[in-house]
């Protein structure tokens, strides 16, 4: 799905300006990472693209149409093609994983199927397969409140994988995972998007993960684009400047310096650039 933001400004109801005349164009099937210090507007951009909030000014175009001008039924159909992975997964604690994952397709299922699935899960095999991709297949019939924060975050990923959307939005999808698992889950998202030709836009806290896994990286600072290029074209100076307000050096997965040694386990696991 193509995504285009033209001069988008977003002002929160409390008067705080989150995005300032931001323009972006992302082609269908592209995989993009968004990085930047906290409070820079990464979440706002994803929520705008996910049609969860409306721009104060400027236009958003999804699949070459302004979603806010679509009739209600068309907007719902469009939303069913957008899958969002939230940083804090919005999952009911008493729900079983199988139901939580199947909820990913509620926008695509007819009402009778959705309601019948509350009585008996409609697609147990499908839910199990989605959970297997994040290493949680054995917890299929467990309740969400029996899981740790990191496991819950992976359930959120599994739900969106099961939805199989044309536009995958991930808001810090691995913030609660350890580096190995984080790398695997981000890899799984990339493979999924690539295999289906879906667009993937992920905001990430760890710079090394963004540079190592995505062909295009957008740096956001104070609600505006600081840089937008392939990882090979991003210099240490650009990164240091991007995070200048927050810390002396850019954040990485286990707070190791970004300048990696030529040898050693970290270099092998996490190439800085592709």
């Amino acid at each position, binding site marked *: 799905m193509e995504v285009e933001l033209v001069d988008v400004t977003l002002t929160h109801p409390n008067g705080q300006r989150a995005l300032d005349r931001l323009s972006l164009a992302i082609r269908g099937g592209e995989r993009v990472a968004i990085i930047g210090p906290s409070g820079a507007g990464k979440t706002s951009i994803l929520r705008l693209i996910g*049609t969860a909030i*409306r721009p104060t000014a400027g236009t958003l175009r999804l699949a070459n149409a302004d979603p*806010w001008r679509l009739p209600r039924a068309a907007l719902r*159909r469009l*939303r*069913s093609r957008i899958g*969002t992975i939230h940083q804090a997964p919005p999952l009911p*604690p*008493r729900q079983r994983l199988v139901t939580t994952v199947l909820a990913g397709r*509620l926008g695509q299922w007819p009402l009778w199927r959705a309601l019948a699935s509350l009585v008996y899960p409609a697609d147990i095999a499908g839910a199990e397969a989605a959970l297997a991709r994040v290493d949680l297949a054995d917890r299929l019939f467990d309740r969400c409140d029996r899981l740790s924060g990191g496991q819950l975050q992976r359930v959120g990923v599994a739900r969106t994988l099961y939805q199989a959307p044309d536009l995958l939005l991930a808001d810090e999808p691995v913030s609660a995972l350890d580096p190995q698992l984080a790398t695997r889950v981000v890899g799984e998202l990339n493979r999924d998007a690539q295999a289906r030709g879906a667009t993937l836009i992920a905001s990430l806290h760890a710079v090394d993960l963004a540079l190592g896994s995505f062909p295009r990286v957008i740096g956001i600072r104070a609600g505006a684009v600081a840089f937008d290029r392939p990882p090979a074209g991003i210099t240490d100076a650009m990164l240091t400047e991007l995070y200048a307000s927050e810390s002396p050096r850019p954040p990485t997965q286990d707070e190791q310096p970004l300048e990696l040694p030529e040898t050693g386990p970290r270099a092998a696991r996490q190439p800085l650039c592709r």
Partner: protein
Amino acid sequence: MTAIRASLASRDPALLPRLVITVVALLLLWPGLELAEFDPAALFDSRGLATLGSFVGSFLPPDLSPDFLRLVAEATLQTLAMATAGVFLAAVLAFPAALVASRALSISRIGPGRGRWLGEAVRLPVRWLLVVLRSIPEIVWALLFVRAVGLGPAAGVLAIAISYAGMLGKVYFEIFESGDTRPARAILEAGGGRLTAFGYGIFPVALPELASYSVYRWECAVRASVVMGFVGAGGLGQQMDLSMKMLAGGEVATILVVFFLLVLLADLVSAVLRRAVA
């Protein structure tokens, strides 16, 4: 100068608001007691005490004769049936109303998008309807239905159904909105509908509260159906009315014991339900 500032800073800033609230509450309460002709002295003057004393004294021993017990058992069953049927009907009416009235399930509020004012225009009348339903006391509904469908429990069932639909509907939609609404919102944002967002997003969050509040309302309905018995809606209340008019203290005592047992039962059911859905 610095000393003054220090002493100012160490005073609790909440002091003044708390004082004002206390004074205002007292000023509001006093005329309330006056208006209600609340006079504790009347309770303790010799004549009142004597009447009360002889009536309460006649409570012992409770009337446990088989004939009366059979009568009470029948009335108890009638009361339970009236309360249960009434609350069930009320829930059937309240549920769809709460679904419509709840802002947590509004698709048009996301953004906000198209039809936002239409949504609000539908929600408000439903909320008002719920207010109207519960603003009229169940006893008034009972008097109305006793005239419409005649003496007996049917009038009580209808009265409970109508007034409790208002209360349940209001509390249901408040429960829907007060819990974590992000799961439902996430489903709406992924193209889900209202009903599915409710079933997958709100119901699992709200279930324990819904269950325990509904059982609590059932307990209230048992008590309400007693009061409605006094106006001829059948059940334990009607029996109590008869016993009191005949100044049969023993019978009244027996019925009061049954009330106590019923409330205990409601407590038990509530606890079991809460554990089952926790």
